[in-house]
């Protein structure tokens, strides 16, 4: 979720859940029993409200966005609306702004997710194995997870901003305001994102760690494997599905980054770190260009779709492999 974040959503390899309930299937299912029919009806009735809401608030608007993206539609000139085909897409894909912002988004996603994976793994190991204080660590690590993203972004912005009295420029003896430089704003954005979302990554990895049995580790220890070897040869391979799921959700979440960049760039004014979500927002709600903005929204949607498809392909193979192995 931003389920940012936050909307981050811990939904792991659940795609196959529909088939994992063999116990419920009745052997002679040719004959639909009275109860079977009642069960089907109840099942459909129970999922219907959630399914209808989800479809109505996502599928319908995205289709509407596709429709709007094919129009020249500017809210400042509502009478000048007409069908223009793909010309909005042509002008976006032909503009350097889109490619620059896409590059910002990809770079920010890549950098933060890699750092988060390493730090998240370390954090998960501490949460899992520390001899004491595990509760304390879990509780404090949840604070960045739970904190409002805008608040987290302000905490980092106000710490780094020379103009707003941040302690960082003073402590480091910087003459220039870090938030006025491209490097400074990038470092701040990366730190803010990593701080906020590493705990979520760690919790997803923690779930994977819990699946690695101690017996395997003990056996390898007896055979003389070092801790390092055991980590790479036992823990990591067994955690692979959990790692992929964590990467999937964090990558998609990072790609949608909006809040942090919006706050750090002073409501989108400083464009040196502008991402595709911020660009869409500015086009839609600052410039009120519904046509171009919708085309941008659709492009962001397609990018997310591509990332998801790549991960699901990777994950699918893995889940199928581990699924058949387990049965």
């Amino acid at each position, binding site marked *: 979720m*931003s389920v*940012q*974040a*936050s*909307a981050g*959503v*811990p*939904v*792991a*390899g*659940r795609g196959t*859940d529909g088939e994992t309930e063999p116990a419920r*299937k009745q052997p002679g299912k040719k004959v639909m029993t009275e109860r079977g029919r009642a069960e089907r*009806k*109840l*099942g459909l009735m*129970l*999922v219907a409200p*959630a399914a209808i*809401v*989800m*479809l109505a608030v996502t599928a319908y*608007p*995205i289709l*509407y966005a596709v429709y*709007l993206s094919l129009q020249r539609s500017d809210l400042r000139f509502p009478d000048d609306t007409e069908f223009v085909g793909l010309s909005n897409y042509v002008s976006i894909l032909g503009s350097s702004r889109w490619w620059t912002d896409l590059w910002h988004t990809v770079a920010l996603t890549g950098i933060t997710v890699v750092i988060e994976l390493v730090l998240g793994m370390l*954090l998960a190991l501490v949460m899992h194995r*520390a*001899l004491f*204080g595990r509760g304390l*660590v879990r509780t404090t690590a*949840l*604070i960045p997870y739970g904190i*409002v*993203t805008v*608040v987290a972004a*302000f*905490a*980092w912005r*106000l710490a780094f901003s020379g103009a707003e*009295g941040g*302690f960082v420029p003073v402590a480091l003896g910087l003459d220039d305001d870090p938030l006025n430089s491209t490097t400074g704003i990038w470092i701040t954005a990366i730190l803010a994102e990593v701080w906020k979302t590493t705990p979520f990554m760690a*919790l*997803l990895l*923690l*779930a*994977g760690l*819990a699946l690695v049995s101690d017996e395997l580790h003990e056996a390898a220890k007896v055979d003389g494997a070092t801790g390092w070897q055991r980590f790479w040869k036992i823990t990591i391979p067994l955690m692979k599905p*959990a790692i992929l799921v964590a990467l*999937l959700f964090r990558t998609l979440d990072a790609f949608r980054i*909006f809040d942090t960049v*919006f*706050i750090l760039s002073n*409501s989108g004014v400083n464009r040196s770190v502008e991402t595709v979500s911020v660009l869409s927002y500015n086009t*839609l*709600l600052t410039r009120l260009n519904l046509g171009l903005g919708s085309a941008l*929204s659709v492009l*962001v*949607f397609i990018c*997310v779709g591509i990332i998801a498809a790549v991960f699901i392909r990777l994950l699918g193979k893995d889940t199928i492999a581990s699924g058949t192995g387990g049965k």
Partner: protein
Amino acid sequence: METKRNKYFGWGAANALIVVVALFPVLWLVSLSLKDPTTIADGRLLPSKWTFENYEGIFDQSIFTDALRNSLGIAAIATLIAVSLAAMAAYAIARLEFPGKRVVLIASLSIAMFPPISVVGPLYDLWRNIGLYDTWPGLIIPYMTFALPLAIFTMSSFFREIPWELEQAAQVDGATPYQAFTKVIVPLAAPGFFTTAILVFIFAWNDFVFATSLTSTQAAQTVPAAISSFPGASQFTAPTGSIAAAAVVVTVPIIILVLFFQRRIVAGLTAGAVKG
């Protein structure tokens, strides 16, 4: 003996590092919020003059108090609706055989990955046309929608843990599936409900994209949106103190939830990943 002590020391150092890193930015905001307006831009880590002026200031401004009311109300209602709808769906997914189950799961998974910015434009246009722009329902609807996948997955993983023999026993005793659901399962599933509610509440409390796009006045603006558009106390002062104080205030409920329900939150967030 020596190595054991080193081990303790090592874990202690790791724990301490994590606690400091996790808390430092929050403590910095607290420190900033307690600075007096004249010294707020002095770049010191700790206030040289302590004051609660910033807090008094924001609670005097309706832009903040209204936003706090909106945030609480909208997040609470969105949570209530999302949890109710998700409970029904999760029960069906965890327990019943019916056609289209996979479709629902795939749809939820897709929405979990959906970029909210992609529906902001269409919703903005729609909401203005049907009068939902800048209203509570205008935010409640997207919040509950985007929280549903999380809620359905978390709750169905809790539902799978429930001793279902009890449900069958109730049905053998003549209860209908509906009665078995309300009389037997709901009480057993209460912890799952509660955990899901916490996660959904945090999600709704956190949102900024929809809040800043679909509201414009104090009628529905939530705290994250309000903080980002705080005016200074006067035209010439930066709103730093107000931002810091407001940031601390909205963080308090999160800290309370985390302190009291750490175990539940961790269980809820990890419940999904385990069943790969």
